[in-house]
C-alpha cells in the first residue's frame, strides 16, 4: 500500500490538483487569479516533492515502473509546467476558462508521467494518447481566432495519423514477438526483417512527436497558431517527455536493434539540424522562429542519443534541463510582449533594449544559451551532447553538427542585434511586468547561468543512471 503512495507520488499530486481545480470550478465563485495561485502552489509542491524520495519500484504487474532517474525527469517536467504557469500569468488572467485550461494541461502532464513510467506497450499507448489529445484541445483554446482552430486541426490530424502508424508498428511487434511487455520483448528481439520493419514504424511515430525532420511539418504551424502558453508547453514539456521515452525505448527495449537505430538517428539528426536551421533563418514571426529553432535543437538531442546508454542518457537529460530554462525564458518574453502590445514580429523587436531593458537582457541570455555561447549553460549542454555523440568515433557526423551550431549562431544573434543595435521609429512601449512573471523570468535566468556553472548537477544526473 505504501508503495502505491510513494512510487506514484508525482502522479497522485497532479491528480489531486486536477480534481481540486475541477471541484473549485464546479462550485463557482472563484476568481481566476485565486485559481491560478492555487494551481501554482500545487505545482510548486509537486516539483519539490518530485525531486525527493525517488527509488526503484514496480507496480501493477510491471506495467508501471520507476527509478531515481525517472523521478528526476518527472520533477523536471513539473518544474517546466510550474514555470509556464508563472510566465504566462498575464494571458491566464485574461482567459475565462482558466480552470479548464489547467485541467487539460495537467491531464497531459499526467499522461507524460505514466508514459515515462510505462513498462508495457499497452500502457505506453494509452498514456501517449492521454498526453496528446488534451494538448490538441488546448491548441484550440483561443476559440475566436481563426489560426487557433487551424493549428488545432493540424495538431489532432497529425497526432491521430502518427498514433495510427505507431499502433501498426506495435501490432507487427506483437506478431513478431508474442508479447507486449518491454522486458520480455527485448529478450525476443533478434533483428529479423519483420522486427526491423515494425521498429521503423515506431520510430516514425516518435519522429512525429519529437518533430524530427521528415515529420516536422505540423510543428511550426501549431506553434504559431496556438496560445503561447500551449506553445511553450508543447515545445518544452511535451518534447522533453518524448525525448525521455525515446531514450528508454532505444536503450532498454530496442537495444538489440542498435545498428538500425544508430543509422536512423544519424540520418534524421543531420536532416533535422540542417532543415531546422535553414528554415529558422527565413522566419519573421517570433513564435515560428522559436518553433524552427526547437526543431534544430532536437537534431542536437539526437546526436547525444546516438551515443551509448550511459553517456547518451545523461547528456540528453542535462541538455533538456538547460533547454527548459532557456526556451521558457524566450517564450516568456515573447508572451509578455505579445500580450501587452500584440506584436509578434521580429521587426517589432528592433530597439527593444531602450524601452524594455530587463526583457531584452533575459531574451539575450536565453538566445545565447540556445545558441550555445560559453558563459551560459547552453554551451555545456551542447558540449556534452557532442562529446557523447563523438564516443562512436563517427567524426564527420560531429563535424556536421558543429557546423550547424555555427549556422544557428547567425539567426539567434540576429534577434539580439535587432534588440540592442537597431533603431526603430515605432518601438514597443515599456511594458509593466507582473510580479509572478518577473519571478519566473528571474528563475529562468538564474537557471540558465547556474546549471552551467555548477558541475555537481551533471554529476548528480550521471549518478542517477
Amino acid at each position, binding site marked *: 500500500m505504501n508503495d502505491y503512495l510513494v512510487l506514484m507520488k508525482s502522479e497522485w499530486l497532479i491528480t489531486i490538483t486536477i480534481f481540486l481545480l475541477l471541484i473549485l470550478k464546479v462550485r463557482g465563485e472563484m476568481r481566476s487569479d485565486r485559481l491560478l495561485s492555487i494551481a501554482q502552489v500545487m505545482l510548486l509542491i509537486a516539483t519539490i516533492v518530485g525531486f525527493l524520495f525517488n527509488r526503484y519500484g514496480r507496480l501493477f504487474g510491471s506495467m508501471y515502473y520507476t527509478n531515481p532517474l525517472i523521478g528526476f525527469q518527472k520533477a523536471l517536467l513539473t518544474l517546466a509546467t510550474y514555470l509556464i504557469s508563472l510566465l504566462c500569468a498575464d494571458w491566464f488572467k485574461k482567459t475565462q476558462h482558466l480552470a479548464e485550461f489547467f485541467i487539460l494541461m495537467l491531464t497531459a502532464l499526467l499522461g507524460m508521467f505514466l508514459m515515462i513510467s510505462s513498462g508495457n*506497450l*499497452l500502457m505506453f*499507448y*494509452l498514456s501517449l*494518447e492521454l498526453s496528446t*489529445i488534451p494538448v*490538441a*484541445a488546448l491548441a*484550440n483554446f483561443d*476559440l*475566436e*481566432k*481563426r*489560426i487557433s*482552430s*487551424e*493549428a*488545432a*486541426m*493540424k495538431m*489532432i*490530424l497529425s497526432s*491521430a*495519423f502518427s*498514433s*495510427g*502508424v505507431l*499502433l*501498426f508498428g*506495435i*501490432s*507487427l511487434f*506483437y*506478431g513478431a514477438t*508474442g*508479447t*507486449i511487455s518491454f522486458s520480455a520483448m527485448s529478450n525476443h528481439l533478434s533483428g529479423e526483417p519483420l522486427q526491423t520493419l515494425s521498429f521503423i514504424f515506431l520510430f516514425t511515430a516518435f519522429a512525429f512527436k519529437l518533430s524530427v525532420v521528415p515529420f516536422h511539418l505540423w510543428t*511550426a*504551424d501549431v506553434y*504559431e*497558431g496556438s496560445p503561447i502558453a500551449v506553445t511553450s508547453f508543447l515545445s518544452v514539456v511535451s518534447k522533453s517527455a518524448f525525448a525521455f521515452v525515446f531514450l528508454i525505448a532505444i536503450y532498454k527495449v530496442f537495444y538489440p536493434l542498435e545498428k538500425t537505430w544508430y543509422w536512423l538517428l544519424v540520418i534524421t539528426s543531420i536532416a533535422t539540424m540542417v532543415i531546422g536551421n535553414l*528554415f529558422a533563418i*527565413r522566419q519573421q514571426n517570433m513564435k515560428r522562429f522559436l518553433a524552427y529553432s526547437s526543431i534544430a535543437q532536437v537534431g542536437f538531442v539526437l546526436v547525444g542519443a546516438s551515443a551509448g546508454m550511459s553517456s547518451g542518457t545523461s547528456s540528453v537529460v542535462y541538455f533538456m534541463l538547460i533547454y527548459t530554462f532557456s526556451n521558457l525564458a524566450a517564450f516568456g518574453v515573447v508572451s509578455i510582449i505579445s500580450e501587452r502590445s500584440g506584436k509578434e514580429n521580429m521587426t517589432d523587436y528592433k530597439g527593444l533594449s531602450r524601452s524594455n531593458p530587463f526583457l531584452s537582457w533575459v531574451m539575450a541570455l536565453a538566445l545565447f544559451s540556445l545558441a550555445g555561447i560559453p558563459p551560459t549553460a547552453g554551451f555545456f549542454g551542447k558540449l556534452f551532447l557532442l562529446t557523447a555523440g563523438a564516443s562512436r568515433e563517427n567524426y564527420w557526423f560531429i563535424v556536421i553538427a558543429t557546423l550547424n551550431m555555427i549556422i544557428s549562431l547567425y539567426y539567434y544573434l540576429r534577434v539580439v542585434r535587432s534588440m540592442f543595435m537597431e533603431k526603430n521609429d515605432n518601438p514597443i512601449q515599456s511594458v509593466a511586468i507582473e510580479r509572478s512573471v518577473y519571478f519566473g523570468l528571474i528563475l529562468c535566468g538564474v537557471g540558465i547561468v547556474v546549471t552551467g556553472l555548477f558541475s555537481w548537477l551533471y554529476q548528480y544526473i550521471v549518478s542517477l543512471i
Partner: protein
Amino acid sequence: MHPGLNHLLFVSTSLFFIGVYGFFTRRNLVTILMSVELILNSVNLNFIAFNKYLWPHRLDGAFFTVFVIAIAAAEAAVAIAIIINLYRSHQSIDVEKAEELKY
C-alpha cells in the same frame, strides 16, 4: 478454403494503406478522420489475427483491440469538436480553406 493468417494480414495491410492514401488525398476533414479510423481498424484486425493464429494462449492482442477502439472514440470526439469550431470560423470543412499558417 479456410482463411489463414496470410489472408487476414493481406486485408489488414491493404486497409492500412487505403487509410494512408485517403488521409493524404482527401480534402474534406470528416473524410480524413474516416481514413484515420480505417488505419486504426486495420490495426485491430492485425492484433486479432496474430492473437488467434500465432499466440492463442494469451489474450494480449484482444485486450489491445478493446483499448484501441475506446481511444479511437475519444480521439474522434476531440477531432469532431475541433472540426466544428473550424467550421464556425472558416464556414467550411475543406482543408484547403484553412491556409493561413504557411512555411
